[in-house]
């Protein structure tokens, strides 16, 4: 558990309530959390080099899939795994094309999210 403090998770969502509640949940599970409402995702990634990014697919004006592709095109941050989040169950079929490592459907269970975080943040 202790080593989780060193794991930084970037959560991006245009909904601040989701940002706040997710941040709280992840911090209670010992992760270090940075949040973004979308526009500064790339700069934050470059600044903090998070171990994993939880990226909403649909953030108002910003299309998470395009953002995802841009991230993957930038070699300095391309290796950072991304879990894409969507309210649509069709994400199952579309996430792979964006370069994301995995997906999770809204509303999600914290246990499910924690399993995926562990998987992609290099734990175990």
């Amino acid at each position: 558990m202790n080593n989780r403090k060193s794991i930084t998770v970037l959560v991006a969502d245009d909904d601040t309530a989701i940002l706040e509640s997710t941040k709280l949940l992840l911090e209670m599970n010992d992760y270090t959390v940075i949040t973004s409402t979308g526009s500064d995702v790339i700069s934050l990634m470059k600044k903090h080099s998070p171990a994993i990014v939880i990226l909403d697919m649909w953030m108002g004006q910003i299309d998470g899939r395009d953002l995802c592709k841009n991230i993957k095109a930038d070699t300095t941050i391309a290796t950072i795994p991304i879990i894409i989040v969507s309210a649509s169950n069709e994400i199952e079929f579309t996430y792979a094309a964006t370069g994301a490592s995995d997906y999770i459907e809204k509303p999600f269970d914290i246990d499910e999210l924690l399993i995926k975080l562990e998987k992609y943040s290099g734990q175990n």
Partner: protein
Amino acid sequence: MSKKKLLQSDLHNKTSDQPTLSNSSLLQTESQYHALFETLTQGVVFRDSTGKITAVNKAAEEILGVSESQLLGQLSVGLDRPCLKEDGTVLETEDHPSMVALRTRTEVRNMILRVPNFKKNEYRWITANAIPLFDANSKKITQVYVSFNDITEFKHSKELLDMRLRLQQAISALSQKALSKRPLTELFDNATEQLARILNVEYTNIVQMLPDKDEVIFRAGYGWEQNVQIDRTTAPMGNKSLAGYTLSSKRPVILKNLLKETRFNKPKLLLQHHITSGMCVILHKNNGPYGALCIFSRQRRNFTTDDISYLQSIANILSFAIQQNETEHELIQNEHKFRHIAQALPQIIWIADAKGKIEFFNEQWYDYTKMSPDDASAESWSKAVHPQDRHRVWHLWNETIRTGQPYEVEYQLRNGETGKYFWFLSRAVPIKDKTGTILQWFGTSTNIHEQKQAQQALEKNTDLTDAILQSLPSHVIVLDNQGTILAVNDALKTFAFENTTLYPSEVSIGNNYLKVLSQTRTKYGDAINKIKYGIRAVLTREVNNYSLEYSYQRGKDESWFLLQVAPLKHAESGVVVSHTDITERKKLEKQKDEFMSIASHELKTPLTSIKAYGQVLLTVFKRKGDASSVQLLTKMDSQLNKLTDLISDFLDVSRIEAGRLHIEEEWFNLKALIEEVRESMQLTSDVHKLVFDCQVECNVLANKDRLGQVVINFLSNAIKYSPTADKIEITCKRVNEEVVVSVQDHGIGIAPEKHAKIFERFYRVTDGNRPSMPGLGLGLYISSEIIKLFEGKIWVQGEAGKGSIFSFSLPKKRVQYILHE
């Protein structure tokens, strides 16, 4: 004198002026002559200068029926009997050909006479030649050479032929009279007179049976005494007269000798007339005997077969005439009867002659037209016909008379009382005689005004139907049971004009729509095939009706159409095909789908944070050890999951309707999926034990999540609708080649009549007594749509109160069975 000797001397005489022959050659010639003499088929007789017979050959012996020895020295070959001349009179001896030759010293050639044949006791006809033979020196007649041929057979044949010819001429003369429809009495008189003459008898008669009395009456007679009177004198029936006996024995009778007759009593009349022989044949009318035709002779006669057949021929001719006469009589009688009946009929009845002239109208004609019988006669009937129709009717009637074809025409006929015209239907048929010649026309005219008006109303109705058809916005094509186009509406024509790819110009009345579709080359081949399939299926009554939504690219835009195929009311009378433009609806549906996507996204966003906040609180209370708060928060979380599911269902339905339910397929292990679902669903119920009986292990080609969704739906329903049961059974088995997954509960069950409905949208099962279970009623609808995508079947079994078994199957091609060794 021997024949040989006579012959020799004769030959010497005959050849004395010839060059002298040597002895031996002379002898040889003699024997040759002798052989010739004896074998000649001609009869040969030699006589001396006094006319006495000196030699006779074999053929002569044959013809005369006597031997040479009886004839030698005789003057006549007839011995004591006379020879006869051709006309039957006696041929005196000095007129015999040999005597004539002696007297005249010239040859007699081809004298025809009759000589007696003693053996056969009859006369033979011969043709004889006599040649006098002279002494070379004295020029005296030494002998007469007589040769003769028997021509009896020839003579008989000729007589027979002459007789037959006479009979034939007589028959044909009488036949012509009979055919020319002369009065019967004239014909009878002719026949009786002719018979007497031809058959050489003294009396002939024709008698008719009197049906009421037991007698026959004279209708004609020839040769009878004054006391016999036509139409008065009668003879008794039965065995008391020849005619009576003939009629009762029903066959011709020949009377050979009245005095020896035993078959019938000797009638006074015949005895009075000294009758010995006779014949009697039957005359026939149409149905039965008319009477008899008889001939009588005072001489004893042996009637020949020719005589008999002649009498029968005459009888046949007379019978024909009698029948003909009778038929005509009946026709006249029938026509009288007919006119009587015609007056009683409600229709107008008329009769025209073969040339089309009206002979008769019944009362109804005069009642209706108010014409007088004088007006209406002949051609003036057409005055009652409406001027508009007159020419047409008159022309048709003349055509009918010309061709002999039945007549049928509708026209307006003037009511003489009101002056108004009403519609009538006139028909006429020819009445023909036995030979097919038209005798008359029989016609009827029926008032069809009401039918005509009804028909006109129907035409209006048809106009209305047509108007409806034309005003429909859908593109409508009416087909007969073969697929031939009966009607198309304006909407289709207009559309076809604008766009020739979907409805080529061949979509027009008379063409076969299925063929036109087959020839349509568009890139929407799949839609075309489905349209053809649908029309065929309804045409063959394989399905009651068929509908299909299909799209095609129209310029830049995608157009959507709804095809509907419905049968025409009467079986096998065709179908109505309509294509309705549903592009607008489809656009709206798409907008709705987009809206649903946004709405569900928007709904899920606060749900996500609520759920996350709840989980924050849950973690906090867990850490504090506040068990009751943890329980409450857990419940809240499960309610949030339900809300999430409801929103997901909405989104699914929206996508199903838009045909956009996204499915990706893969092979996966069915047993593992079901087990996984069972485990997670077991967590949702403490009451039920979920039992999985997996009888077959297999991989299936489907979408794991979607198929899981179906199993979840089955199980959650089973849990929901069997609140008091303690067990739910899941089975997976192989039925034929398909794999079948079933979920059985022991709950409220579903009445069989509702089994089909429960897979419809928004349908919810109730048992009538209880308040219905919560839920939107979308689960089974979504499940059935999912199973359809995997080409499987979904169904339910069971009854109300006895629990339900929900099942789905996947087809053979989507299943790979795993065989364990």
